């Protein structure tokens, strides 16, 4: 089972360029809305024709601009789950699911429909119309309708965006189980960072139609190669930088000089550090440790976000961009009592440089 995509398409504001190869695994597309994520899925499904390139699924050429191949949507054997599930409002759940099995003998159609309904736990609502069932049930019905046709790859377009927050996590778990049992490549589109991380091993971050990061999820989250990727993966602390020596840089936005673990490569102009990697320490003589002044404290039910400004005194600190760090409530309680300024350490092994 393999999906190979290499396409370009001119869109209104940018050019979509997509290139990836996927075996039986889940690739998460992460990107802001309008970045070209859904458009890529539509190209694979055949709903949109790319300007150039090639799409191959299990050795079948779905699209090849050079050979003039553009397989009709109906023959692509691709499963696509729509953002709003797109169930047929005039058909019952069961009829919806059987829709794609039109050509099969009645007995087999019946068997396959029943099997998938049992598997996804929706046999009880078989005779309901889409408007009569909940969002989660609609999602499963749509998924069943797709899976029952045994598609060779599965494309999920923002599968949770139409659902309430409180049922998302439960459905996420169910979807994970279903995907785990599915024997083929899965492409999953979302603009939700955490969802993307939990559901996919491989992640591609898309910005203006181009992949700014692509790799295993840990690579992508821990060591983003480009500044857009860092921003899209939720990195709050990013600064422009200038080299002082190969192992030492000046972080222009923060007004600091920092030691690096490894030498900077040409082309890298930014550095960043994740908010949970920042440390409040007691020893001011540790490497990359600076006096920090609290600017804002934001509490959430389980942790605390601090906005800190760095500098010898408060006034100097006010002129630079702040850094943000996240602490557990308990850690916050222990540092809270310390006298100002606090000491903030940006450990060299947690700093990453980006283009």
């Amino acid at each position, binding site marked *: 089972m393999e999906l190979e995509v290499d396409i370009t398409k001119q869109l209104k504001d940018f050019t979509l360029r997509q290139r990836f190869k996927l075996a039986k695994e889940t690739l998460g597309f992460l990107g802001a809305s309008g970045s070209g994520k859904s458009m890529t899925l539509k190209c694979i*499904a*055949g709903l949109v024709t790319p300007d150039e390139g090639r799409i191959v699924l299990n050795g079948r050429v779905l699209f090849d601009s050079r050979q003039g191949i553009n397989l009709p*949507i109906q023959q692509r054997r*691709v499963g*696509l789950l729509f*953002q709003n599930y797109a*169930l047929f409002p005039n058909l019952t759940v069961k009829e919806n699911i059987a829709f794609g099995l039109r050509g099969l003998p009645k007995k087999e159609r019946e068997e396959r429909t029943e099997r998938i309904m049992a598997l996804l736990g929706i046999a009880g609502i078989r005779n309901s119309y889409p*408007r009569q069932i909940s969002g989660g049930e609609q999602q499963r019905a749509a998924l069943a309708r*797709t899976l029952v*046709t045994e598609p060779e790859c599965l494309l999920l377009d923002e599968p949770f965006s139409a659902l309430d927050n409180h049922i998302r996590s439960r459905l996420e778990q169910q979807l994970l189980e279903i995907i785990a049992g599915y024997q083929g490549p899965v492409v999953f589109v979302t603009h939700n960072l955490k969802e993307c991380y939990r559901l996919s091993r491989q992640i591609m971050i898309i910005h203006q139609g181009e992949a700014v990061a692509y790799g295993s999820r840990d690579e992508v989250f821990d060591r983003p190669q480009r500044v857009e990727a860092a921003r899209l993966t939720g990195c709050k602390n990013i600064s422009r930088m200038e080299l002082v020596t190969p192992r030492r840089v000046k972080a222009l936005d923060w007004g600091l000089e920092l030691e690096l673990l490894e030498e900077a490569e040409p082309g890298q102009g930014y550095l960043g550090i994740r908010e949970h990697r920042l440390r409040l320490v007691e020893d001011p003589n540790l490497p990359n440790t600076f006096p920090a002044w609290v600017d804002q404290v934001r509490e959430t039910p389980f942790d605390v976000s601090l906005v800190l400004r760095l500098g010898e005194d408060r006034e100097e600190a006010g002129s630079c961009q702040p850094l943000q760090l996240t602490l557990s409530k308990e850690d916050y309680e222990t540092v809270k009592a310390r006298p100002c300024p606090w000491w903030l350490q940006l450990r060299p092994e947690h700093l990453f440089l980006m283009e």
Partner: protein
Amino acid sequence: MEFDLFPLWISLKTALTATLITVLAGITLAYWMVYGGNNNRLKRVKELVDLLVILPMVLPPTVVGFLLLLIFGRNGLVGELLYRVGVTVVFSWPATVIAATVVAVPLMYRTTRGAFEQIDGNIIEAAKVLGAPNWYLFFRVVLPVSLPGIGAGIILSFARALGEFGATIMLAGNIPGKTQTIPLAIFLAVESGHMEKAYLWVAVVLVISVGAILGMNYWTKRQYLFKGF
């Protein structure tokens, strides 16, 4: 009083035939307009066709009748061809059908098109991704989902076809027993002072029209119940 039922018979025959043609033509046109591709050249053609189809709805019926005379008259574009194979349209029963159809099609076409355009584009795409050929998609999804709109279109078209006067009198004339429909019979009755005859025909038209409206309401209510609007 001498009262023959020919006008009722002719009216029903004409209106039903015209409605049948109108429904087929209206749905086909609407489908083509909404789902029949969208490249730039096709867009122009579509705009032109849209204009031509809608035109009879806004023109005075006599003008429609006049234009139809130009087309179907012995020296007209179509009329001449038909005359060569021995068919004369003007002042014949088919002329009543042509007149009624031409004025009813815009109603059917507009309502059906509106219904098609309201369908969520995703469900059309979903059906295709699931491998459904266009005919299956049409009969299994597009048509059932737009039934309330189509039903309304059918009733409107039937009512319009039944009431057609201006274009009919221009193209088909007012020949008793042949092209004289109820509206024409009413006109003639009033003109010649046979008021009691006019009353009767008016009552007949009222019964048919009210029946049609009640039928439409029942139909849409049933559809709405089922689809849960």
